[in-house]
């Protein structure tokens, strides 16, 4: 036997450290929050975060600095976390749910798991960016864009509508990230605007035409590298990369569909407080913070390049203003994620 070299003492020491680390993780159970809305937020909250980790982390850091509430993020995809909340139901450890797109939070709302948002928070958000129910609120927005490689696709060849991509001429020419919430939200807009039958046939044409990538960044990177001529993504991936080194977007251009086309869909990111939150005061305070000027300024000045929607904060000057995008008007709370996943599963896309 040759394993004597690992001395017992060393291992015990490492083991002890490990257990301390783990115990430290376990012991920080959420402090019981008081339900009075006038109470000062304290303790900690768990956020199920479908939004970009870096954006939510920026909100959380700022919020913690201001309120000393500790924010724990559980990162995942919108539909994953939405369905998870539905399954966890009353036993959910989550206090706040933040999404990139509205379908997932609507799912949770329909399961009656969300608490009404504080009136003061709702007052900060224009009615167009939140459901009438007041059970959740928009926190940011993003627009669908068509990203393409001008070396492979001339201006004349560009599609005029998202629906064009179903034509056989587009076979093998466009990419998307179908397993992501973003693209599924776009499909849900299509479903809302054109109905089930049209969506179904569009999806089966898409199955023939498109090339699947994992993640919008990857789609853009592939278009940039000339692997594929074009892709359907959200706008901020392009701006984010351009603001950095541009190495994944420098060979690409962006096109907005406009004309109230399904492809001009502007998706509202949502935020809600769980009914079962053990710290509703801090949870409500977090949403209020995000939709307040301070939180929205992070959208304007940070590197997320998502659109602010509340407290009259303007978008990052690099972006085309939301009002000029001529997006189709869709009530965000009507978007249905379950049907979309079913349709996409049936089409063999996921």
């Amino acid at each position, binding site marked *: 036997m040759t394993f004597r070299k690992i001395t017992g003492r060393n291992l015990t020491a490492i083991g002890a*450290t490990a257990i301390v*680390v783990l115990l430290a993780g376990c012991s920080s159970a959420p402090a019981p929050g008081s339900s009075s809305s006038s109470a000062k937020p304290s303790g900690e909250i768990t956020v199920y975060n479908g939004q970009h980790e*870096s954006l939510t982390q920026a909100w959380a850091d700022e919020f913690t600095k201001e309120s000393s509430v500790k924010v724990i993020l559980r990162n995942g995809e919108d539909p*994953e976390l939405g*369905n998870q909340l*539905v399954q*966890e139901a009353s036993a959910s*450890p989550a206090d706040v749910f933040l999404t990139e797109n509205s379908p997932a939070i609507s799912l949770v709302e329909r399961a009656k798991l969300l608490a009404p948002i504080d009136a003061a928070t709702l007052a900060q958000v224009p009615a167009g960016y939140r459901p009438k129910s007041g059970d959740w609120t928009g926190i940011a927005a993003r627009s669908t864009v068509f990203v393409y490689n001008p070396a492979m696709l001339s201006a004349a060849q560009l599609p005029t509508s998202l629906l064009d991509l179903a034509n056989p001429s587009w076979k093998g020419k466009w990419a998307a990230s179908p397993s992501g919430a973003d693209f599924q939200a776009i499909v849900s807009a299509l479903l809302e605007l054109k109905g089930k039958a049209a969506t179904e046939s569009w999806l089966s044409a898409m199955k023939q035409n498109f090339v699947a990538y994992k993640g919008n960044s990857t789609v853009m990177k592939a278009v940039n590298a000339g692997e594929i001529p074009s892709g359907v993504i959200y706008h901020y991936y392009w701006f984010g990369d351009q603001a950095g080194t541009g190495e994944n977007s420098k060979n690409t251009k962006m096109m907005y569909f406009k004309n109230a086309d399904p492809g001009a869909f502007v998706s509202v990111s949502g935020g809600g407080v769980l009914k079962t939150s053990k710290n509703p005061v801090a949870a409500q305070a977090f949403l209020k913070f995000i939709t307040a000027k301070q939180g929205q300024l992070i959208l304007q000045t940070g590197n997320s390049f998502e659109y602010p929607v509340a407290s009259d904060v303007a978008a990052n000057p690099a972006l085309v203003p939301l009002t000029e995008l001529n997006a189709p008007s869709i009530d965000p709370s009507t978007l249905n994620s379950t049907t979309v996943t079913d349709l996409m599963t049936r089409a063999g896309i996921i």
Partner: protein
Amino acid sequence: MSTSRIAGTVDATAAASPNRARRGDVRSRAPKRLMAAAVIISALSSVPLIYVAVTAIVTGWPTLSALIFRNRVGELLVNTAGLVIITVPLTAVVGLAAALLVERTTLPGARVFALLLAAPLAIPAFVHSYGWVTVIPSLHGLGSGVLIGTLAYFPLVYLPCAAALRRLDPALEEAASGLGLRPTAMFLRVIFPQLRLPLLGGSLLIALHLLAEYGAFALIRFDTFTTAIIDQYRSTFNGPAANALASVLVFCCLFVLVTESGARGRARFARVGAGASRPVIRRRLRRSTPAAYGYLVVLVLLSTGVPLITVVRWLTAGGARVWGDGQIVASLAQTLGYGLTGAAITTVLALPVALLAVRYPGRLARILESVGYITSSLPGIVTALALVTVSIRYLQPLYQSSILVAVAYALMFLPRALVSLSAGLAQVPLGLEEAARSLGIHPTVAFIRVTLRFIAPTTLAGGALVFLGVINELTATLLLAPSGTRTLAIQFWSRVNEIDYAGAAPYAMLMIVLSLPVTYLLFSRSRLVETR
């Protein structure tokens, strides 16, 4: 998930030295408490299997068949089967050729290559993929899957084959050449048949790894059942489609297990004797020396060089920024914590099963053992889905707790500890413990003072292998860990997903650094047998 289950193969050969059976030949029944403990642990082990079966039944055949018999599943089946069918024989050839060159030729520097060829095991498969995608961004599809699979996993064949080659009795070959066998015939008729078990064992591990791997294939846009299950999971949490795919995947794993056990026949372990007393016969390569060198150098460059150089390149490109985000230390501590607790819990859970298997062998022990093996051959995502559902519905306090993650690790890596523990236990004469009891020492105390003391080295080795598995684990950790958990693998993956390859590099580097000692341990164990 991405690293070796080679523990099985290597230790199985180590365990070939038979336990000194108790004189009196017949075995008594196991103590009730030991049996109860082993049964409970195996019942726990069978949770994922039961979950898949129950979900399938509850979902009902009409829904299930609609979810299974569709084009998408057909595509996945073609991809997954293609991957396994092409990669497994390829790794067998690549690994066996490397083992032959290193162990049976007089190639100078063979010892260095012997070590370098094991090194890919220290690199998680998704880091292999990350390296290759950096070099060739357009990599995708089956061919790329085969490339990554082969380079990441060939050591799982190479190591056991090399170990077996070192222990073949030269007398056999001398006898064969006395009978006039030429070298080629000698290899085919004498050497190759003796390598059947290590080849099969290694191939089994590779097939299971290929079935279970997520990150490596997601990065090159190659869809297998596992990546598709995770896509479904992302879209629906644990919806019926994810579970339907999981049941097909479980079926694939069982198919692989049955195929291997059929091919292996009745031989349980490589019976290669106590080790050759004389050094093995090495062939002198003359004109083919440059070709042999070329092969080994290219193999090492592709398998270890590409990922390692890429990581270093990204680290250089990222500069100080990538180390400075303040999360690295926390993530490292968390990973170490999970690794060590996972290893400890897995070892503790493996102990009763190993005791039963070694001291009271019989049908029950075999069944309990095989439950552990089957479960561990399931992809982490299946185990994780099962535990998520079971804990949400029935064990709320455990949901999203560190304990549940540790349980998942135990289910996934139990055989690593089991194999090492059994090998260790088999070496401890039962008489020692009984001697202590006859001296008035309580049986439990006797076990601790005598047996535990003796199996400490093998136990640590088994624990180290579990540790290796845990620190590279991605999917189960993502699903089960408490909110806020960010292990090295999670951090690496979230950065890669945002195409922050430079930001991911430190995490890749740390995973490799943590894996190196265990890989070395594995390597030295596989060579250890020679001197026993």
